[in-house]
């Protein structure tokens, strides 16, 4: 537990000192989403209809941008081999790095999402569902991404491999993330908003729990392999 907090606090401190790395993902998210109204024309109904999809797809891509640096810097400067040799269990070390990654990437995206939703004229009823869906979905993105980031460590030009590995695995999160918001927007009465989105949110939760279980194990195995 002490090692876990040690890693989280160091990664957060590193992120604070290198602010450009953190702000890049969320800036990419905001800039890219704001391009769509310019490309598609200012039609409020159309924009509100496609907003969930655009928010989620862009969020996936923003997370993808930040994945390469998750383990690569530690791999290159020798920190990773020291981590393997340290008393920390590798599984909890992977989890700690994922938590720090989510705090510096997923959380800012979650905070920026309602802003973008406003820009797309999304119904205000759907905002709360959007935030819940992001809260359940973005941790899975960090967890699944960590598996790919560790697997590509030894490979030359691993950065190109990561999207190929990760994007297919992100599809379920995308489907249920968008589905949750769509379900609320199609509902006529405000009272049934949560009920309509519930099944989608539960799937997002299930994906999160499964990746929470698998990612530390797979990540730790991949790290050990990367040391060879």
């Amino acid at each position, binding site marked *: 537990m*002490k*090692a876990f907090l*040690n890693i989280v606090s*160091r990664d957060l*401190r*590193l992120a604070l*000192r*290198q602010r450009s790395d953190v702000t890049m993902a969320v800036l990419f998210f905001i800039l890219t989403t704001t391009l769509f109204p310019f490309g598609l024309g200012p039609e409020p109904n159309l924009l509100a209809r496609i907003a969930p999809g655009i928010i989620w797809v862009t969020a996936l891509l923003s997370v993808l941008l930040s994945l390469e640096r998750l383990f690569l810097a530690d791999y*290159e*400067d*020798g*920190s990773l*081999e*020291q981590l*393997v*040799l*340290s*008393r*920390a269990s590798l599984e909890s070390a992977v989890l700690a790095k994922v938590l720090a990654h989510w705090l510096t990437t997923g959380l800012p995206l979650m905070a920026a999402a309602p802003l973008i939703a406003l820009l797309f004229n999304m119904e205000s009823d759907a905002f709360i569902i959007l935030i819940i869906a992001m809260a359940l979905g973005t941790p899975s993105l960090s967890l699944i991404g960590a598996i790919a980031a560790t697997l590509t460590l030894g490979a030359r030009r691993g950065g190109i491999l990561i999207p190929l590995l990760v994007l297919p695995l992100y599809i379920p999160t995308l489907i249920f993330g968008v589905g949750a918001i769509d379900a609320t927007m199609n509902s006529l009465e405000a009272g049934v908003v949560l009920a309509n989105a519930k099944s989608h949110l539960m799937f997002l939760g299930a994906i999160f729990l499964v990746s929470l279980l698998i990612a530390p194990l797979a990540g730790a195995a991949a790290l050990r392999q990367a*040391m*060879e």
Partner: protein
Amino acid sequence: MVQSLFTGEKLTCIRGGRTVFTGLDLSISQGEALVLEGPNGSGKSSLIRLLSGLVRPRSGHLFWHGQDVTREPEIYQQQLHYIGHRNAIKPVLTVLENLSYWAGFSPEKPSDLSRLEQALIQFNMLALKDTPANLLSSGQSRRLALSRLLATEKALWLLDEPSVGLDVNSVALLETAICAHRAKGGAVILATHTEIGLDTPQRINLSNYSPLYNTALLKQEHLEESWI
């Protein structure tokens, strides 16, 4: 006869399809030092990584206090320091922050600042303790990496060319540290090209075990291959 701390039997390392060394035996007791010698590519770094458990031997066994630990290096990894070619230093953190991060994995009190400062004093780094590591020269970075040896106490030191980039005075500091470690019953295995002053070290010349330099082994290897 003192019981040996760490023993390797008939160690063979194969990297990228090439036999780096084969049939290597070594044994080190408390208070002893072992110097690995040999020309470039004879497998000094590979042997040190293998002894640290980062790389598993292709064949042969490792014993820690007489217990076979070839398959479970975690048992003894907590009791060794490994200083590789890379210093595991984060450029945006200060000297003291870098050191306290690595010391934070040990079970000792986290706020044991005096111990960290003592380690920095030993390597003449205390004046630089609040300096960001990206301002350090390569010799200073090396000294910071070496301070880890003293920040937490471990029985076995594995040093891969520890004196690279160090000036004469700093090499003397390293010699003092090794001497004190051995006096406390610690063991040191180090690979080096330059002479580091040690009191009656064992020596292993890796070119005797490397098919690249020992043609007798090369013939044997060819025989084995043709047999396969």
